[in-house]
């Protein structure tokens, strides 16, 4: 309510009180019409008294009192309004806090759930990848072991097959320029003796 409206209300109240007092005066002194003049005189006297009582100063006094009372009410209401406003603001803040907190918690929960899902997916994917890698590693290891074993067997077979040539090669490289046939004669004659008969037969059959 504005200040103007409050003033109008106060004025209406004062007028209503005046009318009520006037009517009460008239009811207390019913028409004991002792005489028209007496009534008129009484009326005039009452009117004068009313005018004397509700003179300008008294009205001003009432107006001031009404203004003060109004200001007081206004102040109190403003205070109450301010308190209500503060309370409302506080409640609104709390509500907003709660709402924001709830929304944020919901969002964080969703976010955490999403993160958790993504993490699970990533872990699952990593585990699958690790499993595939491990499987491939095992297969590769087996292949490499097989190949190594095959190659080793082949090398050993090759070495055993050509062992005499290989050793002979190294002996030849080692003794190279120091071959002395005279020291080998015993060895040569031993073989010649062992194969003498075969040599004789071959020569007889060939000539």
């Amino acid at each position, binding site marked *: 309510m504005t200040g103007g409206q409050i003033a109008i209300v106060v004025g209406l109240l004062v007028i209503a009180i005046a009318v009520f007092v006037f009517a009460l005066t008239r009811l207390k002194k019913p028409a004991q019409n002792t005489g028209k003049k007496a009534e008129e005189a009484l009326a005039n006297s009452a009117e004068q008294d009313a005018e004397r009582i509700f003179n300008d100063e008294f009205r001003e006094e009432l107006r001031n009192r009404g203004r003060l009372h109004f200001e007081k009410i206004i102040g109190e209401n403003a205070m109450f309004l301010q308190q209500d406003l503060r309370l409302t603001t506080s409640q609104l803040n709390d509500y907003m806090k709660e709402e924001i907190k709830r929304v944020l918690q919901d969002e964080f929960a969703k976010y955490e759930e999403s993160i958790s899902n993504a993490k699970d997916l990533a872990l699952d994917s990593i585990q699958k990848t690790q499993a595939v890698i491990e499987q491939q590693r095992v297969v590769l290891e087996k292949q490499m072991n097989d190949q190594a074993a095959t190659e080793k067997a082949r090398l050993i077979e090759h070495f055993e097959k050509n062992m*005499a040539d290989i050793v002979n090669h190294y002996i030849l490289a080692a003794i190279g320029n120091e071959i002395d046939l005279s020291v080998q004669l015993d060895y040569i004659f031993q073989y010649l003796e062992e194969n003498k008969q075969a040599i004789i037969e071959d020569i007889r059959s060939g000539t």
Partner: protein
Amino acid sequence: MELKLPIILASRQDITHVHRELRVFLDLVSQSILRHDNPVQYPGISATLRALATENQVDLRNEAACKELLGRLEKLKNEAPTLHLSFPIDPSAEVMKKLIVWFRQEIDPRIVIQIGLQPTIAAGIVLRTPNHQFDFSLRQHLYRNREKLKEALEV
């Protein structure tokens, strides 16, 4: 009677050379006789021919004996069994002498030898007869004893 071959007469080429030399010797001696040289001019002879004549006790001044020797040499040139010996290095004269003596004593007195080089043998020899090859090399020795060699290498 078998012709005795001196050690110095080792290969078929040697027989061919000495055969040719003896033939030339005979020709020259015949020519000298025809010229009525007095005394008869005898050309010089090689150590091989000298050794052959000495070994077989042939007097080269005797034309008939020379012709007989020539004939036997001719026969030997065609019939002498040849052995091919491969060595890792050039054999010394001493080694050759021992081998020839052994072959002529143990196998056949007419044997002649042809020498070859085969450095991969390393040690020993490879003997090739008309129809067969006898590998007496170290490589073959190792091959024959490869199980022992394998055991030795495993140890």
